[in-house]
Structures are given as C-alpha cells and as structure tokens.
C-alpha cells in the first residue's frame, strides 16, 4: 500500500490505554486478581435497557435485547464473589488501586480532581453482569512531554468479564477478569502519524510498568484508538492488544476514511441524492429465480426455509466494489458488516463481485430484470429467514444513505491483520449516571502523600543513574526507550554488579537486534529466557561472550529448550580448557616456531573455534600467552 501523506490528510489520532493494575484485590471487592480456568457453577442472565433509554439506546444493544440474547457466566470460586455475580453491592473502592492511579497521574503532570465519583457506564453486551461498567475520573489534563501529546483524562475502572464463547443466541463469559482494576489513560487527538501512535502507546505502557504495580503479559494492556482525518469522523477502534499492530491500524483506517470521502464525492458527481436513492430503492423476493441455483450458500439458505431478496441500489454500480482498503475491504464489506451485526445475517452478494460464488450471469440478469434495474444500478442479494431479511433491508438502506454523509460514527473492532470491522454505532452521548452504592471519595493529603511514593522515576533521573552504573549515554538512551526497561531494572537489582549492567542492557537491546539480523525469530525470546541467560552468567556457568550464539541457535532451531542450549555452551572447567590449548599447541609446534609471537592469533582462533564460546576469551588468551612463552623460549 502506498503511504498517504498524513499531514496533508489531517490525520489525528488519540489513544485510550487500559492497563490492569497488579493489586491483590479487585477494585470493588476482596477477590484476587488472577485469572482462573476452573469453575463449578454458571449463571444465566438477560439484560434489558433501563426505562429511560428505550428508544434512545444504541440499535445494536436494542437488537441484542430483542433477540433475547442469553449471557452465561462461569463462576470461578477463588476469583469471583457475589459482587461479580451482581448479587451484592460493590464494596468501597480499592485504595491501593486509587493510589497507583494517582501516582501515574502525577507522573503525567495531570491535575487530580478534588473528589472522585464512581459512575455507571451502560454496557449491555453482557461483558458486565450489572449492565454497566463502574468507572471514575481521577485526573484531567497533563502531557507526555517528549511526544508533545496531551493527556485528556485518567480514570480508574473495572475490567470486563472475559469472553469465552459467542454464539447467535448466547454469549459465555468468565467472571474471573470482571472487576480487576484498570487505569484508563486517554490522550488528546495530538498524534500525527502511524508510527507516533505506536511510540506513544509504548511510552505510556512503559511508564505504567515502571510503577512496578501493573500486570504484565498478554491481555493485561489494551489500546483503543480514536482516528480521524480532515473532513472525516472520529472513529473508535477497540481492543488492540499488540503494539506492533497500531501503525497498520492507523494506516488502514486513514485510507478507509479517505476512500469513504471519495465515495461521497463520487455519489454527488453522479448527481445522486439520498432522496433519489431512497425513491428508487427496490426490494423483491427473488427466491423463485434461485430454485435451481448452483450457489451453495443460496441453496443451503433456501433449504433451511429461507428466502432470497434482491435489492436494487440506484446508480451505484462500482460503488459496492470500491476498495476502501486495497485488497482487504470494499464498500460492500462495510454493508455486510452492518448486516451481520444488526440483522444477524451472513451471506450478502453484490453485483460488483458477481458472477461468482456459484451465481451465474444468467441469474444476475434475471434478478436485474425482476428489479427493473439497469446496468448502472448495483444489485444486492441476501439470503435468510424473512424476519432477519426485513431487518437487513433496512440496515442496507441506512448504510447506503450514510455514504452521502461520508463516514458514519462507529465503534469498530481491531482484527488480526490490522483492518477493523464494524461493532456498533457510537452512542450519541455517553450514558453515564452516578454509582449510588459507592460514596464520593475526597482526595486528601494523606492519599496524595501515599501516592507520591509510587510515582515512577523520570527518564532524566534514570539516565543519570544508568551512566553511573557504567552504561554509555547511547546505551542508556536505548534501554530507556526499550519496552523491557522494567526487566532491565529487575535484572540489575538481582544480578549486578557480578553481571555488569552493561551486559544486561546490551543483551536486551543490541544482542536481540543482532539475533534478528541473523534470521532469528526474536518473538520466541521471552523475559524468562533473558533472565535465564543473565542468571547463568551470574552463576559463572556460561561466558557473556556466548549470549549471542546461544540466542541465535535458540531462535533459529525448532523444538529446543533454551536450557539445553545453555548446557551446550557451559564454560569448560579450567583443566579441560588447558588440555585443549595444550593439544592445539602441540599439534602446531612447527607453525608456532615459524611465526613466533604472532602465533598467538592463530592458536587463539583455533582454540576459540573448538570451544565455541564455552570459555571466556580473555582467560583463553592469557592461558595461550603463558604457554606459548614456554614453547617459544
């Protein structure tokens, strides 16, 4: 994909970072904050929009409710209680979580509010047993300095239940994750490039980890992105778990919005209006035409008692097939998303992609005829039961009309390839009201005092400290930027000065780069692996010189354990090393006598290639020197 000019495009990105806090207890009860697979009981529940919301609740939620979606909750016994089951009021807010969040607010120069009110944010997809998420703003404003990105707000909130399985009528969740404290940091829309978005996420993530009070590992930090371009709409993209994916998501979303605006232009260029499309919108039951079709999807649909609807989209030829994201997403894909999410139907075909999927030219022509359509019109075919089809027709009509406005306000979900799919319309105004079961919490001096102790060290002060530890300025900078900065700190605490901090820092930074350049799969290397290596040096089992070789071997071979490779590289006992050196000297006596002092290099290289990193080069050199002296003399 050719890169767009983001400055010209007016790209604006804001991040919402959700990080689980590593407190012993959940935010509003005394359950532990671990995940737990085991469960013995389940609960079955239904959610229903509260009265004042009927009519104004978001369509997806209302639709789910009308379908009578059942939510099944697994009840793990050590990590959930009556609070998660929505059978007991929440307890007072977890003070430790509050202190950690305040400390982070301080580190970001955010303004702490004077009194905290827990709010209920309506969420009706079952991920909260209550039907709302409890959340509280603790600070406003602030700045991530070196990126010039402003902070809008910092909130503490409860994590949602963990989704286990989703079917059409039923969603299963586990309650272990529900209620784990989260900090939510929202930045202003100040990010201007896909790369900067990743960088900001990384820096905030690192700041969070530096408190030493947040959870680590997959699923413990999640990013939401708000993305817009000039003339576009702020789109919310939820649930990005991998940082590396962020630049692609931003790129794809920018181009998606760019193309949606192009489509809007094209519609007006064709002289179309909403009214024209609406008054020429034709829907017909064309099941009869597909009685003998070879299309499996249509055939199956009809056999299950479904119908086939044909839709004429007036003068929209080429629009449904318009690529929003080259090779990945067309405008038709967007419509199909809506139909799936709002009408619960898969299987939508449009004329820009037909004939295909077993649907023949002849069938298309018959449909065209039945709908009284010209070749300038686009055709859409959908299959399913009548009730859903009727809903789908409305959804399709609405989505096509929205194209005249450009980019509909949506909440989208991130997919693994960096593209996104429609999840639900964005709620018009945040549906929030006070959580009356939790009294207001005044922020007092004592709380602020306690929070101050948890404020992570600033990068400037770290820099100074690392230079004292012996790191070069460049290496210090590099390690401060590295996502494993916290690992560095931890390993330095445990293993230096016996293992010099320089060795630890360069293992984490340069060595990994080297391994990657040698074709190693560095995603295989986790924090435990790095610790294992440093610990082996600490115990004098391996030489620091063998780290790169070990990691290259580890990351380029399959089905091997790091432990076994380390064993291979274990430092030779001194007697064995002496014996190897003696053997090599003895079998090269002639050469040595010829080269005299210069023979050192020859012997050195022969010995080193024999011991393959299982000896410290310095020691080997010394041994060779002292022995050669004797031989030469």
């Amino acid at each position, binding site marked *: 994909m050719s890169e767009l000019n983001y400055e010209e495009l007016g790209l604006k990105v804001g991040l919402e970072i959700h990080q689980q806090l590593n407190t012993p207890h959940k935010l509003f009860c005394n359950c532990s904050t671990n995940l737990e697979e085991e469960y013995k009981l*389940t*609960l*079955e*529940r*239904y*959610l*229903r*929009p*509260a*009265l*004042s919301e*009927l009519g104004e609740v978001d369509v997806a939620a209302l639709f789910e409710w009308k379908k009578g979606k059942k939510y099944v909750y697994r009840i793990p016994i050590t990590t959930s209680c*009556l609070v998660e*089951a*929505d*059978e*007991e*009021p929440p307890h007072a807010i977890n003070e430790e979580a509050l202190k950690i969040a305040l400390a982070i607010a301080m580190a970001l120069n955010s*303004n702490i*509010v*004077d*009194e*905290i*009110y827990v*709010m*209920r*944010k*309506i969420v*009706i997809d079952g991920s909260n*047993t*209550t*039907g*709302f998420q409890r*959340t*509280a*703003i603790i600070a*406003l*404003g602030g700045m991530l300095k070196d990126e010039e990105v402003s902070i809008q*707000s910092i*909130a503490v909130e409860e994590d949602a239940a963990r989704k286990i399985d989703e079917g059409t009528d039923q969603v299963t969740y586990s309650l272990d994750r529900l209620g784990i404290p989260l900090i939510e940091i929202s930045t202003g829309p100040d990010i201007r490039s896909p790369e900067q978005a990743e960088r900001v996420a990384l820096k905030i993530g690192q700041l969070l980890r530096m408190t030493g009070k947040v959870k680590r590992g997959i699923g413990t930090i999640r990013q939401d992105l708000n993305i817009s371009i000039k003339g576009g709409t702020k789109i919310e993209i939820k649930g990005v778990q991998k940082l590396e994916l962020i630049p692609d998501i931003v790129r794809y979303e920018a181009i998606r919005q760019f193309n949606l605006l192009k489509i809007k232009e094209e519609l007006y260029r064709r002289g179309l209006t909403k009214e024209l499309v609406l008054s020429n919108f034709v829907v017909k039951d064309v099941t009869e035409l597909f009685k003998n079709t070879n299309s499996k999807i249509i055939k199956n649909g009809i056999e299950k008692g479904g119908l086939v609807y044909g839709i004429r989209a007036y003068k929209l030829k080429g629009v449904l097939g318009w690529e929003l994201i080259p090779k990945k997403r067309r405008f038709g894909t967007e419509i199909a998303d809506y139909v799936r999410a709002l009408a619960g139907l898969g299987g939508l075909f449009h004329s820009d992609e037909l004939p295909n999927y077993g649907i023949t030219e002849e069938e298309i022509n018959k449909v065209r005829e039945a709908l009284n359509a010209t070749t300038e019109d686009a055709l859409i075919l959908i299959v399913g039961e009548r009730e859903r089809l009727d809903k789908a027709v409305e959804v399709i009509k609405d989505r096509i009309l929205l194209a005249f406005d450009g980019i509909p306000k949506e909440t989208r979900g991130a997919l693994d390839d960096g593209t996104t799919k429609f999840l639900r319309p964005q709620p018009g*105004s*945040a*549906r*929030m*009201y*006070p959580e*009356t079961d939790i*009294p*207001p919490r*005044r922020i007092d001096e004592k709380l602020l005092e306690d929070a101050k102790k948890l404020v992570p060290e600033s990068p400037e002060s770290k820099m100074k400290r690392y230079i004292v530890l012996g790191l070069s300025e460049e290496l210090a900078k590099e390690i401060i930027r590295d996502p494993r900065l916290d690992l560095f700190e931890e390993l330095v605490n445990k293993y230096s000065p016996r293992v010099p901090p320089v060795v630890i820092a360069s293992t984490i930074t340069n060595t990994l780069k080297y391994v990657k350049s040698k074709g190693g799969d560095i995603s295989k290397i986790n924090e435990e692996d790095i610790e294992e290596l440093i610990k082996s040096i600490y115990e004098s089992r391996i030489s620091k010189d063998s780290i790169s070789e070990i990691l290259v071997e580890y990351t380029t071979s399959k089905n091997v354990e790091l432990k076994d490779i380390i064993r291979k590289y274990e430092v030779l006992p001194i007697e064995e090393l002496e014996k190897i050196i003696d053997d090599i000297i003895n079998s090269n006596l002639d050469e040595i006598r010829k080269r005299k002092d210069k023979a050192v290099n020859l012997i050195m290289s022969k010995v080193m290639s024999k011991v393959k990193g299982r000896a410290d080069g310095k020691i080997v050199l010394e041994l060779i020197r002292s022995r050669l002296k004797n031989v030469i003399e």
Partner: protein
Amino acid sequence: MQENYKGKAYDILKNLNIEEGDLIEIKKGDLRIRGILLPSYSKDDRIFVIKLDNGYNIGISIDNITEIKPIEKKSSKDRESERREVHNGAKSEIKIISTGGTIVSRVEYETGAVRPALTTEEIIQFLPEINEIAKVDAEVLFSILSENMKPEFWVKIAESVKKAFDEGNTGIVIAHGTDTMAYTASALAFSLRSLQGPVVLVGSQRSSDRPSSDSAINLLSAVITAKYAPFGEVVVNMHAESSDTYALVHRGVKVRKMHSSRRDAFQSVNDKPLAKVLWKERKLVMLNEKYISKKDETLLDAKFDNRVFLLYYYPGLDRDFLEQMLTNTKIRGIIIAGTGLGHTSSDHIELFRKATKDGIFIGMTTQCLFGRVNMNVYTTGRQLLDAGVTPLEDMLPEVALVKLMWVLAHEQDLEKIQNLMITNLVGEINPRHTLDLFPRWSYE
C-alpha cells in the same frame, strides 16, 4: 436553585447567579474545566459537582479556583416535568398496586436520581410483554420505602385490594420494597382470609434502573401468577435462583427474606412454595396442592394493635430490661424467638408467669426458623408452658408477631387470644414437615 449547596460554595453560586443544571467553566491553575453544575451529593460543602461532556462527574474544590463563570443557563424545557397520573382506564383483569420500591423506575442520567415510573403506560413501556398476558391497570397507592412501612399502611393496601377485586379484577399484583415485604404479606393474609383471586407481592433486589435488574422478570411472573393461579391467597413472587431461570411463588405467611442482597433472597420456610413460574414460556406450574381456593367474595378485616414486642432471646438477656417493658409499658403481647425447641433461660420464667397473669400474651417461636417448637422435651420448656407461654408450632417469628397484632385488635380475652394464635387461619401453621423441607448447602 442552589439549595443543595451550602457554605462558601453556595455564596459563590449565588453571587454569580449560577443554578444547578447551568453550563459553567472553572479555571484552576492551567486547567480549564467546562461542565454542567449538578446538585451536590458531596459531604464536603467546599465541593462543586460537575458533569463533564464525556458524562463523568468530578468534584472540584472551591480552594485555589482562579475563575468560575456561567456559560449557559439550563434551558427551561429541560426542567423536570413532574407527572403522576392515576389511571382510571377501561376494565382491567389485573390490577398493579404500587406501594414503593423501585420495581419500575426511570433513571435521570444527569443526577442519577431514580424516580418511580408507575403509570400503566410506563409499566407497559418498561415491560411490553405484559400485553401478551393480561389487560392491566396500575394504581399508585403510595410511595414509601419498605423499611418505613407501618400497620396503618397495611390496612390501606388491604382496602385497595378489596376495592380492586370489587371492581372486577381477577388478580392483584402489589409492588413493594423487599425489606418488609414478608411482613406485609402476612398482614394482608390475615386481613383478607376470603379472596376471589391471587394477591401477588413482588419486588426487586436490583433496582430497575440497571440493565441487570430482576424487576422485569419478577413483575412479568407476578402478572402470570395473578392471571393463572388457581388459589385465593396472598403470595410473594420473586426470583427462584441467582440465574434468570424462573420465579417462585411463596405462601405469604411462610416466606422470609433470607439474604440481604441476592435475587433469590426470598425462600419458603417450613413449607413448599405454592408454584413456580416459567416466565419464558409464560406458564405457572403448581408445586403445592394444599392451597386455599378462590372464594366468591373478598372479605376485608384489617385491624392491627401494635402494642407487641418481638423478643430475640440471647444468653445474658437482662431481666430488668424485660421487667421494665412488662410492667411500665402498655404492652399486650410478646413473641419470643427462643432458642432451639422454644426456650429462654429459666431465670425469666417467673416474669412470664406474672405477665400472663396480668393478661399479657407470651408466645414462643424458634430462632432456628426451620422446625417446630416443642416445649415438652426439656424441663425449662415445661416450666415455661406452666408459666403460661403459648408454643406457636412452626410459625416464623415475624409471622407470629403480625398475627398477634391482628389478633389483639380483635380479642381482649387472653384465652381467646391464645386460641386464635394456635388456630391455623391461612396456612401459617404447617402441621406436617417432610424431610425435604430443609435447604442443603453444597460445598463440593
């Protein structure tokens, strides 16, 4: 109006003519906060409560504020329009009488205030499924918290039940707060011993402003019970399990709130529930065939005398306290929640003997709740009997208390009072306990 604000905060608002609901801007250092001023719900009178445009509320102290100014007045159409219509529509089958609680309510997102929504229209808007079952009509009798319930309110409820049957309804649903729902159920049961149809009390353990509320299912099943039940009894209809699977219909004089917060808090004690309601199938399934049938006429007899006391016995109960009450108050009767089979310390026996001689009724129930009292087994029990204490079979302490209030309002003579107390009037005494009438806890 700044009436929620006090002290310095109030003065500031008054000076600037800022009212709740107005859009304001506050500057504090380099921070600029724009939002709507809400009624204060802070304990601290130096705090302004502000709703930000993202929906969050925050508290900002008046200290160090550099500037505060009004931006926009609240528009008058946003000012709350209060409405409470009493519906007198066409003939209904089921009458829904509201007494309070939040079984149906609206939430006002600005302030979080939860307001009962009790008109027929509102109830149907909340629960359109009701239309599939019966033609309902709603009436707001009063709106009080369940803990503020009093015998005089029981009388009013009983009167409106009578009136609703007389108007041609065939079943009555009473929305009630859950805390004292079982007491009201007993009071109605004794006041309405002849009923033309079911009287179904219903409430919710999670208020209806939240999407997970149990109120919709409870109310729907209550209407199903009111419509289809074959009995003429006062019952309590609530969630059977923590899951939204089905509801149980408990006999009003045999039910107790057994949990402070769970949806399935209400359970029958010493009796089987009368029925269960499969709300998804809109079906009522009878579980207990020993019920009181519907009568041709609804008879009202609601009178209560609250000169009674519920004595929860415990080791160390001070004799003087008890003596004070028995001699220096107008007390006419005591229900003891005694230990085990129905005991108190033998130290108190003589006090009780003197009291019964003075015409004060002393009745014995068990604080075990499950099971029957039997005062013939141990010496103390026999001595208490000898002192004039009346054993009240398997009646729950609260049921016995309400029954005593009702009986005292009807009889003066101690012997007649004692006789009525041990007469099974509406199923409050179950003469036969089978082995399955005790809950089992399972931990494995």
